[in-house]
């Protein structure tokens, strides 16, 4: 028995650890460092219909135990991803989760329709967390009805299961998750980045050229854990958890909260070997904790416990 293997809609994973979208490009750079076959899956960089250059630089800024990014969805566009990146990735025996983004519903549908046909794309991840204010500003990621509508449209055209990536920048994440589940999503991935900003004390200018950006890294881990804890109790589709994961212990914490697999983002920048290292460390940690299989950890914090009540401060 493979103690790390997990089965999710569309995804038979040899282990539940994968790089998060946008933090691993299309795998080429990390392939120079280790054999990508060790990975459970790969979430590739957001793909849009047309090539995008993204935002002006600086695009990243450091924050306490975290970082801000405003890459602006730079990517080579659907065609090139289909013709160059995915075929290149097909040399590896690793399922690809294609992160789909766009400015309009039609964009999403178009990308989803085509990219889901690629033989090594086993699932889609809808990146609805990008309120592109410039183009219409439809808040895909923050209005449940809009997110549900988008999910439905993409489900209709996709040849593979559809996971929807939740934005943490909402009042009620459970409501979003439920609407998306009801619309037919096969799974959820969470969390995307929190909207943040830093200002240079010397110049009084925001450090990011885009002014605001998305906060990721260990700083956001407690928020991710809380949201997964809440959502996993309210839906029955599986969750791929992410947000600040750096170690095998972090992976277990996400499972306890309610995740069935995890993605590692920012930590790849700090230690490019973080994914293989975590995968290698998990079996010993399971031994130490007394679990036969990692899936026993999913939701353990609430399967044992009572309801949540918070009265801040």
């Amino acid at each position, binding site marked *: 028995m493979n103690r790390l293997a997990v089965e999710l809609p569309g995804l038979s994973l040899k282990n539940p650890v994968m790089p998060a979208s*946008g*933090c*691993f*490009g299309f795998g*080429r*750079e*990390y392939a*120079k*460092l280790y054999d990508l076959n060790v990975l459970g899956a790969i979430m590739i*960089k957001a793909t849009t219909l047309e*090539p*995008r*250059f*993204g935002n002006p*630089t*600086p*695009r*990243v*800024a*450091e*924050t*306490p*135990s*975290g*970082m801000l*990014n405003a*890459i602006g969805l*730079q990517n080579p*566009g659907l065609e090139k991803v289909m013709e160059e990146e995915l075929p290149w990735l097909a040399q590896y025996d690793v399922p690809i989760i294609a992160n789909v983004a766009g400015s309009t519903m039609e964009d999403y549908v178009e990308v989803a329709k085509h990219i889901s046909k690629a033989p090594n794309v086993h699932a889609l991840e809808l990146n609805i967390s990008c309120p592109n204010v410039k183009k219409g500003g439809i808040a895909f990621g923050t209005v449940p009805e809009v997110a549900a509508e988008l999910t439905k449209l993409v489900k209709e055209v996709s040849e593979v299961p559809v996971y929807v990536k939740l934005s943490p920048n909402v009042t009620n994440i459970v409501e979003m998750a439920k609407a998306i589940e009801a619309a037919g999503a096969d799974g959820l991935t969470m969390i995307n980045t929190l909207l943040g900003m830093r200002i240079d004390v010397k110049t009084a200018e925001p450090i990011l050229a885009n002014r605001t950006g998305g906060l990721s*890294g*260990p*700083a956001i881990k407690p928020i991710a854990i809380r949201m997964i804890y809440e959502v996993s109790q309210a839906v029955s589709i599986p969750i791929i958890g992410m947000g600040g994961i*750096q170690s095998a212990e972090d992976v277990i914490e996400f499972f306890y909260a309610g995740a069935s697999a995890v993605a590692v983002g*920012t930590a*790849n*920048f*700090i*230690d*490019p*070997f973080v994914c293989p290292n975590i995968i290698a460390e998990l079996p010993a940690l399971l031994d130490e904790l007394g679990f036969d299989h990692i899936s026993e950890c999913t939701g353990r914090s609430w399967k044992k416990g009572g309801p949540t009540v918070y009265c801040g401060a």
Partner: protein
Amino acid sequence: MKTEKMTIVHHERIAKNIYQIRLAGALVAEMNEPGQFVHIKVTEQANPLLRRPLSLCDINKEADECTIIYRAEGAGTTLLSQKRPGEMVDVLGPLGNGFPIEAAKTGQRALLVGGGIGVPPLYELAKQLVKKGVSVTIVLGFQTKEVAFYERKFASFGETYVATVDGSYGTKGFVTDVIDTRITSFDVLYACGPKPMLKALEQKFPNKEVYLSLEERMGCGIGACFACVCRVPDSETAYKKVCSDGPVFKAGEVVL
């Protein structure tokens, strides 16, 4: 390119806030090009989170040692400056594409222009050029005398000029002021320093072979995150990554 915990064998303050650190480890065997950099993790903790990109200043293959010179300014470099010989630092590298030695032929003359903390990579460059039989002229620009460094070490490779903005040392003004008055001819120009300096050099020598080393805020340092891109002339979508396509580019190759 890999990661290694390298051992600090020497660490010294050589000018105001400027530190020279010498690291030993097997990674040195992979270091070849002047202008390449390493990505350094200054703490085992989650804060400061990101690695810091720092250029190779001197590569000593025999001793398996490399030297880096950096300015201790923000949280990360300040922490680095507190480390003592015998301690380890986590190094990812060598990264990027450095200055092309082959661009200057034996017997030709190269002009090396460095500004502030852009000076260090020119040292290994000068060393390799001179070894190849290329004559070098060096122009170094600093804010003031107290942050100037290595000018005497450069002088052993060729004529070396210093400019300081406040005139406290060498010529008063910018490196371009020195070049205007003192430099008569050269075949290839290599430069590293602040963007305004690089722009001025690019404009000044439109018909020369010019190589410029760029700086950009980085995430991964290896080409995966799209943090460090710059534009390519006359294109809406084409780009180069400073970390993996650069940091050294031929003048005109990217938009400064």
